[in-house]
């Protein structure tokens, strides 16, 4: 709850900073300080928990170890993002302070995704994290592709919001309550209206996390938006969507034999997401667009956490959220400093910038799921959760095959950097940037060797 209040207030503070602070570097430092403050405020919340979790604010939010850990991951990843990519904000447009403010508002929405215990809060949090994204996607006003991305995202997002609301309304009609624990959908015979509501909610959330066949907006939006904002949209926000998905389907739609109604549908969505995401990523020329498809492919793996329905899945999705967010933010931070976004643009980077090429390799290996990186244990946990669940073995086999395919397009970048001739270069790599990259890579490696450090916190 502290995290929600601090991030919302910080959004207002950053808004006014633009009025009083003219130096854009200083605005970035204020935002970094703000993110640190929100991180600490979130940790302080640990004192208020008694037992499994405590309901606050008229029972609308439930503060638990789960929600605090996810808030810490989201705010921590945002902090890294500010440090690594914050300087690129001023290249997008004039309103740097407002962009930071919008990101804090998105964070305010994100802090509720792990804690909601009322469907109204779910709806509001999904909206708070969507609407600023539509604006950030169109922040580069002179660029037609950015305008297209914003409009496309806005229209498709509005439709999916409508579907989400329709689902909530049908579930309310069937149960008479918005409270996710009071609903008790699992006991007794299931009302057909509730079943349609669950299906519609599943579709709307699949759209928000860009699962196939609701993924068509993703490549265009991620490719058209300013790269610095794509880095945020594709990582922290997407992880938040999964946390909302997980919480809703584990807490509310899990009692009795409920899961038999939706598990197969979600399993098919997962298989489609894995196959479409991985196989389309193979054919991309631009690294930015490849990362957009790879975010669809990674969404397929995170969906395993939603359908597996056990404690291992919850741990897996947490580790996945941090491994994927940190790795992708790191890659985007390096991409932001490149002139050419194609695979050829990376040719020969290792000779000019050996350190940058080395950390880029670590991030890419983590995304591909190579051992000794956080990505490996994240994939291992979500897949073993699915095996533990029992009847999803066919899906696990598809996932392993797709992971092998994904190694191909991630390694294309590594091969371009190390084994091809070219004069790729990264501009203005400051020592501070190198230190930040080193810390980010260290997180990936440490969590890849000692994943227990994070998992024991849940």
């Amino acid at each position, binding site marked *: 709850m502290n995290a*929600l209040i601090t991030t*919302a207030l910080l*959004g*207002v503070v950053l*808004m006014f900073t633009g009025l009083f602070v003219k130096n854009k570097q200083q605005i970035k430092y204020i935002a970094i300080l703000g993110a640190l403050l929100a991180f600490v405020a979130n940790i302080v919340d640990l004192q208020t928990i008694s037992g499994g979790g405590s309901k606050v*604010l*008229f029972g*609308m*939010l439930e503060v638990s170890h789960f929600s605090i850990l996810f808030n810490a991951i989201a705010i921590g990843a945002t902090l890294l993002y500010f440090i690594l990519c914050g300087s690129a904000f001023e290249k997008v*447009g*004039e*309103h740097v302070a*407002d*962009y930071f*403010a*919008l990101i804090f*508002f*998105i964070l*305010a*929405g994100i802090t*509720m995704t792990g804690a909601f215990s*009322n469907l*109204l*809060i779910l709806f*509001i949090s999904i*909206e*708070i994290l969507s*609407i*600023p994204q*539509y*604006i950030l996607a*169109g*922040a580069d*006003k002179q660029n037609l592709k950015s305008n297209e991305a914003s409009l496309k995202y806005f229209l498709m997002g509005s439709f999916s919001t409508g579907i989400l609301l329709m689902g909530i309304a049908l579930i*309310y*009609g*069937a*149960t*008479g309550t918005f409270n996710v624990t009071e609903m008790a959908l699992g006991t007794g015979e299931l*009302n*057909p*209206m509730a*079943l*349609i509501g669950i299906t519609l909610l599943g579709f709307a959330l699949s759209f928000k996390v860009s699962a196939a066949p609701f993924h068509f907006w993703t490549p265009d939006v991620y490719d058209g938006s300013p790269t610095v904002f794509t880095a945020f949209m594709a990582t922290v926000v997407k992880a938040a969507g999964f946390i909302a998905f997980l919480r809703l389907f584990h807490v509310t739609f899990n009692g009795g034999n409920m899961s038999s109604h939706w598990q197969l549908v979600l399993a098919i969505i997962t298989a489609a997401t894995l196959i479409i995401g991985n196989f389309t990523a193979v054919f991309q020329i631009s690294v930015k667009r490849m990362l957009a498809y790879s975010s669809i492919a990674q969404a397929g793996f995170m969906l395993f956490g939603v359908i597996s329905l056990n404690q291992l899945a919850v741990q897996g999705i947490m580790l996945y959220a941090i491994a994927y967010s940190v790795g992708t933010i790191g890659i985007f931070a390096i991409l932001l400093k490149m002139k050419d976004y194609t695979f050829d643009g990376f040719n020969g980077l290792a000779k000019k910038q050996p350190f940058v090429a080395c950390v880029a390799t670590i991030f890419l290996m983590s995304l591909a799921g190579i051992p000794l990186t956080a990505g490996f244990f994240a994939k291992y946990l979500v897949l073993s959760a699915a095996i533990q669940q029992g009847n999803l073995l066919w899906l696990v086999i598809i996932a392993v095959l797709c992971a092998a395919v994904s190694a191909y397009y991630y390694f294309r970048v590594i091969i371009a950097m190390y084994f091809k001739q070219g004069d790729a270069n990264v501009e203005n790599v400051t020592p501070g940037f190198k230190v930040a990259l080193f810390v980010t890579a260290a997180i990936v490696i440490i969590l890849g060797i000692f994943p227990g450090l994070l998992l024991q916190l849940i």
Partner: protein
Amino acid sequence: MDLQLILFILLSAVAIISALGVVFSKNPVSSVLCLIVTFIAIAGHYILLNAQFLAVVHIIVYTGAIMVLFLFVIMLMNLNADIEPQKRNWMKYAGVISGGVMFLVLLAAVRDANMPALSTTSTDIGLIENLGKTLFTTYVVPFEISSILFLSAMVGAVIIGKKD
């Protein structure tokens, strides 16, 4: 047959016919006019369900404000059949099939569903007094949090609208 049932059938018929009119009419202006009729008929349904305040808001906001906006946009864009983009046939069929399947599923669900939330005993449940009480007691938190949503939307409108 009591009065309520007759009213319900009448309103439903008006709503369905005018909704079909929205889809099938070639002229965008008559589409909008049909939509207004649909909204008024649905407002009548709200009154039958004891949601008087919702009915009034529905008429003021949707039929009043939003539809006027729609008409202005259509007039400013000067739409007519010549410049309407051609849609491919298979897209039309795909739309009809998926929409029809959704309709069938919803119909099948509503047919044997029971709705515990609907209370017809008290007549003043939809009055503004009760709504206000609920909004400022049980649902005060979502109500306050939505201010963040509006603030971020306003910041966005300024960013996008301002000249650089």
